[in-house]
């Protein structure tokens, strides 16, 4: 039996797709939201660290699974090796209803206004495709606000002189600092820095029918047991479904966007929950499958006018993949600094984001989420014994006496750091798999080292008796912060979509996820992906009113 034609197919029920589905469904379009994963709950996973989305030696609890999904990764010697979702070289992002917004740490950052015009600010950077966004911070500001109010953000920018300009306050008050935060706040002030509470997509008070946070130790990497953490799965997706205009189809893997000989998308092919190939037609298609999987799907959607994949005649789909060059330091303290008040991360400084002389970019510095016992077993100064009595002593002595300060260094986009589809290897369904290659720009390493110094300085001022740094290397596999593979831009020669996420080459295919980012900011990207969801979704709804995309 043929599937009923819909106005819009939205592929991927994560941050971008969840929001777009809601925007379109409430505007009256018939929407199919299609997701390769399924619903997850805290009860299914509990507080099991070994299958969380943070440390996943056994499996990625929130998907993707190892039985259907694999990729090829560079072996560093010119060859390729097969990797599975719970290998670090795979670069996983959760595959479920809500995707990363189920299991993330929920930091709710707006990018800095400067992030939208980096090339203007810093000039061209050799070896990088750095460019300005085709939209400004001011244009995106109302959409940031919409994300903050519809999903729910707790924050207070009073003490942050570098906060991106906002028209209205956060909808909920900020979280208090845990004991790490209190210690770090005093030290930061002594150093002349400007500490403030991290804005969080997490309820500090009851909001939108969901309760306040109970401050679990297991937050990042886990679902929330009380739904205090906002994801698309407990906010906008239920709203979309309630309209009656949106169907959510889970456990369905999209293999291809069907593009006809006139260069229009006519729908998709996908494998349903029983692994049976199905066709679904639509008036338009929105791809929100994450930077790597969105690029993969476009590259796998070959047609007579687009033999290199949908929207890829200029060869830019899959290029410029970015993540964050995480950097920072650990400090050991003489006294206990741990109070078991989750999620741990609570305090930040913006002083090193675009504010270091002669330095391009930068990043926010925050205290880390709680390091769980297994994760902590690998956190040691270099040269430490990794087993035996010394290792166990360290674990006992320092679990409650250490603080980590880390930050996401903004990566310079590199054209040859990219997602391709493998010419040979196929996944469980026979769909060509992702392969990722390329190296970070030298600037990322330089800034990473500098920021690690700042983190170490902060910890020393806070009274750390021993400190050590962790700095980024050249190799990386973009995972939960992946972005940049379908860059938006005004010039069709050097970008994949226009400023509204619409493919330059195929006007009824849109992208709405981190793929659009021209750069990835010095912050966790979730709120920006959500804001772009509102931006793209709102624009599609407007266009629909006029032409019905015919």
């Amino acid at each position: 039996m043929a599937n009923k034609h819909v106005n819009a197919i939205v592929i991927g029920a994560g941050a971008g797709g969840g929001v777009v589905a809601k925007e379109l469904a409430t505007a009256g379009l018939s929407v199919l939201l299609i997701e390769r994963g399924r619903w997850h709950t805290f009860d299914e996973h509990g507080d099991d660290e070994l299958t969380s989305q943070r440390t996943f030696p056994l499996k990625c609890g929130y998907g993707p699974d190892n039985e259907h999904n694999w990729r090829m990764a560079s072996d560093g010697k010119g060859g390729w090796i097969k990797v599975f979702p719970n290998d670090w070289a795979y670069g996983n992002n959760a595959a479920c209803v809500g995707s990363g917004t189920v299991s993330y740490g929920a930091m709710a950052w707006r990018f800095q206004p400067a992030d939208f015009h980096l090339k203007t600010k810093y000039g061209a950077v050799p070896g990088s495709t750095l460019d300005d966004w085709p939209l400004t911070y001011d244009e995106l500001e109302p959409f940031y606000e919409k994300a903050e109010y519809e999903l729910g953000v707790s924050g207070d920018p009073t003490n942050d002189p570098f906060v991106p300009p906002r028209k209205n306050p956060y909808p909920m008050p900020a979280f208090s600092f845990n004991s790490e935060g209190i210690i770090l706040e005093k030290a930061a002030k002594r150093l002349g820095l400007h500490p403030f509470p991290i804005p969080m997509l997490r309820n500090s008070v009851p909001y939108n029918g969901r309760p306040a946070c109970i401050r679990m130790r297991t937050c990042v990497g886990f679902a929330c047991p009380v739904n205090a953490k906002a994801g698309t799965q407990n906010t906008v997706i239920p709203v979309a479904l309630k309209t009656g205009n949106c169907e959510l189809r889970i456990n369905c893997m999209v293999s291809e966007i069907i593009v006809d000989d006139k260069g229009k998308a006519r729908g998709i092919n996908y494998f349903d929950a029983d692994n049976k190939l199905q066709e679904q037609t639509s008036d338009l298609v929105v791809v929100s499958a994450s930077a790597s999987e969105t690029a993969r799907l476009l590259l796998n959607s070959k047609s007579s006018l687009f033999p290199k994949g949908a929207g890829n005649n200029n060869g830019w789909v899959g290029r410029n993949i970015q993540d964050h060059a995480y950097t920072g330091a650990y400090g050991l303290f003489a006294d206990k600094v741990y109070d078991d008040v989750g999620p741990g991360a609570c305090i930040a400084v913006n002083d090193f984001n675009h504010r270091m002389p002669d330095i391009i970019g930068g990043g926010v510095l925050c205290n880390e989420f709680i390091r769980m016992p297994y994760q902590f077993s690998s956190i040691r100064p270099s040269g430490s014994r990794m087993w035996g009595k010394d290792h166990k002593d360290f674990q006992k002595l320092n679990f409650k006496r250490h603080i980590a300060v880390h930050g996401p260094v903004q990566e310079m986009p590199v054209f040859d750091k990219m997602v391709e589809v493998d010419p040979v290897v196929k996944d469980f369904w026979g769909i060509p798999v992702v392969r990722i290659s390329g190296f970070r720009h030298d600037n990322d390493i330089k800034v990473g080292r500098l920021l690690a110094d700042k983190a170490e300085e902060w910890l020393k001022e806070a009274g750390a008796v021993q400190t050590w740094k962790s700095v980024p290397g050249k190799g990386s596999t973009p995972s939960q912060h992946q972005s940049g593979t379908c860059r938006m831009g005004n010039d069709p020669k050097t970008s994949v979509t226009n400023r509204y996420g619409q493919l330059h080459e195929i006007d009824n295919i849109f992208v709405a996820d981190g793929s659009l980012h021209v750069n990835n900011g010095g912050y966790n990207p979730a709120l920006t992906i959500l804001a772009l969801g509102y931006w793209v979704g709102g624009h599609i709804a407007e266009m629909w009113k006029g032409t019905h995309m015919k």
Partner: protein
Amino acid sequence: MINQSFSRREFVRLVTGGTAAVLISFNTACKNKISRWRYLQEEEIGLLDAIVEQIIPTDDFPGGKWANVSNYIDKQLDTYYINHQVEYRDGLAAFEKTVIQLKSKKFEELPFPEQTAILEKMEGGDFPGEYWKAHSPAGFFDMIRQHSMQGFYGSPVHGGNREYISYHMLGLDYPNVIGQNRYNDLSWRKYNPNSVENGK
């Protein structure tokens, strides 16, 4: 299931799904008379116990052996780590032979400090390689080391960390009873940007 010809992939899926895992344990048990274990043999467990006890030794808290780390590893070899089975079988055998060649005794029978010295050499790559096939002694040791950390510090649902012993050792409430583990009101204090604590 109607289709009887499983592909290997489906087989693995089933195994990781748990149904066939029981079947395999049963088969293994039948072939080798009575075994408490799913994949490893009794003698292998004896050796593995001695190794995991070195990796996480007993002090004022129990070590890897008491915490059932070997059980954790055995359980994973039957499920998530099915692709490590051969590595364990060959690696443990090669390790045992090498130690006997060096010390004329089984590893388990050596004094604790001598065992430590052997593993230190193995970790550092300074270890006779003649009995080893596809895997290096150092790589084998690192695999057991990592799996031991998982078994000792991870959730007991996977067969290790008996009685949440590592959580007890670290002073963490266990199990983490949702919403019930808050003994002071620190976490409920409101953030006040103008408070003394917040620097003004």
